[in-house]
């Protein structure tokens, strides 16, 4: 394999995981825009998406598409549960940002441990969606799962753009992002938008989890690294901009793939985390300026 095809291969696999990070990053943005909250339990949705699909597939014997849809719906519901049980009471008490972060992080741990008790600590994986040999473009192999990921992600991003630009609900959510009080005065049910944003964000996370699990694996503790990757994607894209988060995710995916190619897969998370720190440190002005 020539250097060029190797490079292209790394790029392609990076774009695949990048899409996933992008979806998770969009999940962060959706909640942040509706509420100013950064949900540190975002990774739990990703883990649950893959895990519930796997359980529905193996234990209940459901076909993959149905298992995946059930998983995404269940996780979306669990998102609203999180909002109602953890976030809303703190929100009503005007909790500080730090308390909100700690509470959602604690929720992440609760979900993790409950999953550990329910299904054990063995990593699980899903079958690929379409079991055919990879396509060849020159010397570069592109697996069909990767195409599933790329196509689905692009459709979702386009769908979200339409949702936020054209539908009344989407516009209402954007209004909340711009000015919550003004939105409330216009008769927009701000709290319902908050619940909706958690459902949407959780569903996106679950979808990301379902898409990525066939190429990697899922286990009770994969959530936090995924959440951090999504967070990086959101930061790189300028926090709060869904399309920016998607591009940020692609960038992170490619950088991470390059790091894996260079240093081995053990340092995958270290590469992502280092990118987070480097990005935070080197762009303090632009980034800190956007923080609340």
């Amino acid at each position, binding site marked *: 394999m020539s250097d060029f095809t190797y490079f292209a291969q790394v790029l392609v696999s990076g774009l695949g995981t990048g899409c996933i990070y992008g979806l998770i990053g969009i999940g962060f943005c959706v909640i942040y825009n509706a509420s100013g909250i950064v949900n540190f339990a975002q990774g739990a949705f990703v883990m649950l998406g893959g895990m519930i699909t796997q359980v529905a597939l193996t234990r209940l014997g459901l076909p993959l598409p149905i298992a995946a849809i059930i998983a995404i719906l269940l996780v979306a519901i669990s998102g609203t549960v999180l909002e109602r049980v953890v976030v809303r009471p703190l929100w009503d008490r005007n909790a500080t940002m730090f*308390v909100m972060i700690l509470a959602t992080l604690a929720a992440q*741990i609760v979900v993790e441990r409950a999953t550990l008790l329910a299904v054990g600590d063995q990593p699980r994986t899903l079958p690929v969606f379409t079991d055919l040999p990879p396509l060849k473009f020159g010397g570069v192999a592109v697996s069909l799962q990767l195409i599933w990921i790329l196509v689905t992600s692009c459709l979702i991003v386009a769908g979200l753009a339409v949702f936020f630009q054209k539908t009344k609900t989407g516009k209402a959510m954007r209004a909340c992002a711009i000015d919550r009080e003004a939105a409330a005065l216009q008769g927009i049910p701000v709290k319902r938008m908050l619940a909706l944003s958690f459902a949407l964000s959780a569903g996106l996370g679950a979808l990301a989890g379902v898409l990525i699990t066939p190429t990697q694996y899922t286990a009770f503790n994969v959530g936090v690294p995924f959440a*951090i990757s999504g967070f990086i994607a959101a930061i790189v894209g300028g926090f709060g901009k869904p399309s920016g988060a998607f591009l940020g995710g692609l960038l992170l995916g490619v950088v991470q793939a390059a790091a894996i190619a260079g240093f081995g897969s*053990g340092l995958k998370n270290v590469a992502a985390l280092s990118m987070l720190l480097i990005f935070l*440190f080197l762009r*303090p002005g632009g980034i800190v300026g956007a923080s609340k």
Partner: protein
Amino acid sequence: MTLPNTTSTERAGLLLRAWPLQLLPWAVSAAIVGYAFIVGGYVATVIAFALVYVVFVTGLNLFMGFANQVSFGQNAFAGLGGYASAILTTTYNWPVLPAMIAGIVLAVVIALIIGYPTLRLKGHYLAMATLAIGLITYEIAVEWQSMTQGYLGISGIPPLGIGSYEIISDRGQLAILSIVALLAVFIAARIKSSRMGRAFLALGASENAALALGINVSRTKLIAFLTAAAFAALAGALFVHVVGYVSPEVFGLHMVILGFTMLYVGGIGSIAGPLIGALLISLLPEVLRGFKDYQDLFYGTALILLLIYAPRGLAAFFERRERTGSAS
């Protein structure tokens, strides 16, 4: 502190009634440790862990309770202190005390390098950056197998002791850890009433006001961070020598949530809070049978409930309000 609309005799009466309540956490803590000392064995081991956590949580309290800063990565410094001490004593045959000190120094130096750029961040960015620091440390402990032996961990770490004198008995360990924990709490109390401590509190109340008062905000933050890191590293080093074994899981995210639960049970910002919080939370799994598997699940749930319904923890009962409006 002045109480509005009270005469001096009423005020004295309030103080008198407040005193026994303020002493309560100390009395309960002394009773718990004393009981463990008498019973010995397994209970003594449990309380020994609790005392190690007292040191960790006291550091956390300095940084977060007093200075009102955010760090989800204090486990990184506990891990650094613990691993450094473990590796120096096992691989390089250092004596325990110098190894522990080296571990603490290493952690503080790394905290200085990390803290300088990190503490310029605010809000969510600071929270996520510190969380990342904890995770990077965990990943390095897993991956750097030639040094840390990865998931297997390092066993056969010598117990606490000075020179040829080793503290092996449960009661001996309990005694030395009680002294160390009490010293840590005492130092925290001294810091709180010192010039630096008042700077921490001013910073915690309002960064802009502190700046206006002539406090060097970034330096104060860094000092609070380094102090907390030193406490965490000491706790980590104590832990590995008390248990005799270390693995990456010991200093994982679990430690962060456990530390916060203890801090919030005891009462964030109070002096006795870390002590009573760590002791009570450590005793819980022993009181409730078959609780072990559900530990983290319980701690996480308890933490969420505390944050919502009792954000001041037990300190709300035993400590006078020192600052008006500190309940936020």
